[in-house]
């Protein structure tokens, strides 16, 4: 049989490639696109208000609720705003760190820094959020640190969510920027200096444009991760994010949860289209 198979594939490069790719492509189509399609479909169903059973007919009721109830606009707005804020914060924090790692640090320091950036990713997400919960609590570490200055910690709320998310997703921003900066040849920086470019001009006109796609690539991670998270908001605030409402509806009103879950997807598609325009995918 193996001989016949070998014969079949011999000299047929298309068939070879097809057989080789069937698994991964099949997985992509069924596992990813299939589940997306199901999500879209489920969003058009509704539930029987008495039994809570699914009614598998087509209706746009869920989308109507989504648009009509002001609370969902608030929640979507809040989620997107925090996601944008976290992304901006991480970009501002990550750039100097990544720059130091890529261009200034010695080989050994660089290795140590890469490990330092990666280590937080080894520990459990929940442990990290719960420790932030403790630090942010009244009379907790942050209050204690700020007390001599006559200040108070932010307590639980949007600020806490912003802080925790910025902390959680920082490595996802540092690593792409680091990779992007590392690819810029030192000779370009020297050339800029030789041509009379001052450090700031060199940064603005040489380094930033070259590294910008990497920043955008990193921002896709931070933005998407913030957009989808629901555990952090639950643990360090009382505010609802898109994920929380999806979670709350998932067992009582699956179709509505599905309709709501489409919102971040739409936001993300928009974001990716902008990112593509900015050239984030050219180096991948």
């Amino acid at each position, binding site marked *: 049989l193996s001989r016949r198979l070998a014969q079949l594939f011999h000299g047929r490069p298309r068939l070879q490639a097809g057989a080789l790719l069937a698994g991964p492509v099949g997985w992509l*189509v069924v596992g990813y*696109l*299939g589940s*997306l*399609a*199901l999500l*879209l*479909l489920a969003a058009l169903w509704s*539930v*029987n*208000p*008495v*039994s*809570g*059973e*699914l*009614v*598998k007919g087509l209706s746009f009721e869920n989308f109507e*609720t989504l648009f009509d*109830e002001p*609370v969902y606009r*608030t929640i979507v707005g809040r989620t997107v705003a925090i996601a944008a804020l976290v992304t901006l914060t991480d970009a501002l924090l990550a750039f100097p760190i990544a720059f130091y790692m890529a261009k200034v640090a010695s080989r050994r320091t660089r290795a140590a820094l890469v490990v330092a950036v990666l280590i937080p990713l080894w520990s459990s997400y929940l442990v990290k959020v719960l420790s932030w*919960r*403790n630090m942010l*609590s*009244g*009379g*907790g570490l942050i209050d204690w640190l700020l007390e001599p200055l006559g200040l108070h910690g932010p*307590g*639980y709320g949007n600020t806490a969510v912003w802080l925790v998310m910025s902390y959680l997703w920082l490595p996802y921003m540092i690593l792409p920027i680091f990779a992007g900066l590392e690819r810029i040849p030192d000779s370009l920086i020297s050339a800029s200096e030789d041509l009379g470019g001052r450090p700031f001009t060199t940064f603005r006109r040489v380094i930033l444009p070259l590294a910008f796609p990497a920043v955008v690539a990193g921002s896709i991670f931070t933005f998407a991760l913030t957009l989808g998270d629901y555990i952090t908001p*639950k*643990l360090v605030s*009382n*505010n*609802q994010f898109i994920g929380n*409402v999806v979670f*709350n*509806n*998932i*067992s*009582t*009103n699956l179709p509505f949860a599905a309709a709501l879950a489409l919102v971040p997807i739409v936001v993300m598609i928009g974001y990716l289209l902008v990112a593509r325009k900015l050239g984030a995918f*050219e180096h991948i």
Partner: protein
Amino acid sequence: VRTHQANPARTAWLIVGGLLAAMAVLAGCGSSGSSSGGEELQKLGKGEGQLNLISWAGYVEDEWVKPFEEKTGCKVNNKTAGTSDEMVSLMRSGEYDGVSASGNATARLFEGGDVSPVNVSLVPNYKTVFADLKGQPYNTFEGKPYGIPHGRGANLLMWNGDSVKPAPRSWNVTMDPKVAAKYKGKISQYDDPMSIAEAAVYLKAHDAKLGIEDPYELNEEQFQAAVQLLTEQRPLVGEYWSEAEKQISSFASGDSLVGTTWQYQYFLLKEEGKPVAASPASQGFLPEEGATGWSDTWMISSSAAHPNCMYMWMNWIIEPKANAEVAEYFGEAPAQELACEHTKNPNFCAEYHAEEPAFWKRVYYWKTPLADCGNGETDCKNYNDWVQAWTSIKG
């Protein structure tokens, strides 16, 4: 350098086409939703050797499960669920034989055809279950019993004894905006639509002209009043909790000072030596308005693969000794009258008011809000409205 630029439009159309095709296939697979409940078992047969249960944490523990397994040969596989919603969706998977459903799940399970009526003549211990637990609207449908009562309790008002003085005797510390303002940012509220019923219990006692009878059967006006109360409470709430651990940590740290809780958190915090207090047992753990509570029912799945074992379990869990064990372990009043003779703490039943029907009249057991008000009117708010309103309250 780009050598080859794929045509993005073409790729996009291919993906859209693929999605539409997948949708068409999936739509074809969709089965019709409605199913009917099963029939009640007529005769008890031999055990099937296995039993798959869904339960609240603390209901299925080795202490009383091991003897059951030895006696019946039914090996128990337990899955604990955190919320009633989770229980309903687990039951709909059809892979479980039974569930310890609270009153806010039972009607949904019945309407969904997920559970069968119980032939109580096959459950000998049922005879001595407290009479006021039988034939209740959350465990009896169309005149047939749909489960075996397991135990009951009230949701407590808990506070920090060091900071909240004098000891509150009313829910007004969390519900009346004027009184509650004193604890702004320190109030702990259960993160569940059932909190609307808590507001309704408060309004029933304090706003007679609303005419609330049953806090789970609210018409538009009554419902809006309860929602309004909780909306006013929103800026005062320090934390909405849904995981017990979350509430324990904020009461332990002093971030929360007063709020609704369950026995579990209260006793755990007390054990840790935290200065928490609740309405004393002498007042029945209840503030003056009464309280929301729960009465749990073991229900049998309409697609149970091991019905005989499930019947044996339903009889076992209200066996006087086993029922006493589970009630003491969990901290609730037993459903079995004879259990009171078997508790390790001889005063247990007295402390939990297990034998006082008058006490339980002031506890409003969780049940599923339905459009049918139960008094002939059909303009009551259903559970979806409650879920929606709860989202809006939290904002």
